[in-house]
């Protein structure tokens, strides 16, 4: 997504790589601006959710019991594994091992792509059973927040494809772009962990 902006950053990257990763902000600094802002926005949603949960405690607990905890847990593992391979792939790209980086990013993409598929296996039976956003406030929160997160996952998968293209086609892969994409993907992962805890686990 941001590969055009990285052109001037490649030379800097090489010296940074040589100097070691200590004290260097990985990726594009405007991505960090985005990540922090996005976390703040989701933070407001989480606070709002907690407030209304406190107001309708019984309703939220009863509705929560209807969620598919198994798929939620499998999806958590999928995202965490995907993030692990993103870390390994970034390491390989930094070390200049392009083949390994490509392989690891493909695995990360596969685990990431499983997330929306599994989400459909979760959502479709729920919606056909009449558990729609209009049912009550809990399900409205559930669909809105997981839906927003799903948009983030979709964008992350697109970014991952750009990373793969960058690693595959360019003579000197842009490490800062790989790092920018990895930063974004980890944010998606962190958001899911909080969502999973708030929506599925909290009692």
């Amino acid at each position, binding site marked *: *997504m*941001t590969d*055009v*902006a990285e052109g001037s950053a490649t030379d800097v990257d090489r010296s940074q790589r040589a100097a070691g990763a200590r004290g260097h902000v990985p990726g*594009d600094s*405007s*991505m960090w*601006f*985005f990540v922090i*802002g*996005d976390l703040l*926005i989701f933070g*407001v*949603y989480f606070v*709002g959710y907690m407030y*209304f949960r406190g107001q309708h405690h019984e309703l939220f607990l009863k509705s929560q019991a209807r969620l598919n905890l198994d798929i939620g847990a499998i999806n958590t593992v999928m995202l965490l594994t995907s993030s692990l391979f993103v870390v390994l792939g970034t390491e390989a790209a930094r070390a200049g091992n392009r083949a390994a980086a490509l392989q690891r990013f493909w695995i990360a993409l596969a685990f990431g792509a499983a997330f929306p598929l599994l989400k459909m296996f979760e959502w479709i039976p729920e919606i056909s059973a009449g558990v*729609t*956003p*209009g049912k009550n*406030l809990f399900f*409205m929160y559930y669909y*809105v927040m997981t839906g*927003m997160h799903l*948009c983030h996952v979709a964008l992350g998968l697109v970014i991952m494809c750009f990373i793969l293209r960058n690693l595959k086609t360019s003579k000197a892969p842009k490490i800062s772009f790989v790092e920018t994409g990895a930063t974004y993907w980890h944010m998606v992962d962190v958001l899911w962990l909080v969502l999973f805890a708030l929506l599925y686990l909290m009692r």
Partner: protein
Amino acid sequence: MAELPKAPAPSAGQATSWRRNRKLDQWIAFWSVPFFFNLFGLVFVPLSWMMPPRSPSSSTPHIVGFMHSHNLLIACVILTLAYGLAPVSNACYLMQVKRMSVSPAFRYSMMIGAITGAIVGMLFPMFCFGLGAFRPGYSPSVLTMLYDFGYLAFIGSLGCFCVMWMAFGLAIILDENNILPKWLGYYTIWQYVTELMAAPVWIAKSGPFAWNGLMTFWFAMMLYVSWQFIVYLCIYKAIKNQPEAELDNAPPEPHPGALEITSKTSA
């Protein structure tokens, strides 16, 4: 809007006159934005109390009283007159997007997004609220429908602007000419993603996801207003920093050669 820069015959010693300012068209478009938003704010809040939005679960007598108020009719008349300012104020964004090294598809999407958004988000509610005040004889059930239609069009249509601002944000991020700062592109992405939050207003009739709710209205509005201010400041800087030779309307009079230098993307 673009007719103003037809500068009069050059008169010696008056080179700094505001009428000869080659960015005059852009500045007019630019200053129409605060004028437009202030007018909007005055009409919506203290004049008609259309905003902050009334509750979707208001009682029928409340709805009828509101729809029949004279101030609402005056507000709709003012909005009818001001409606044309929307294209002028959008021109100031489009002229800067045109300078970016991105496909024209971005600015065409912005343009069409702004048009569809303004029709649904401004024209429809204006007609709905105006109609209610126009003829006192409408039955309460018709007035309730117009009330729902007006508010749903106004708040539930934020998604129309979504594509417009998505094109704007992506153009900023992909642009190589650095017309606007990259972080503004990312900021725009949050802004338009929160506009998607308007979807639940079609389902919820009370609570945080109703059209007057904490999440769908207040939070989205807070983000939008602060974003609008910041975009506005960035556009100001971009117009200020734009080299004169790069302007579309740079007249050939002083140095005919100056016209050769045009931006990467031209009409």
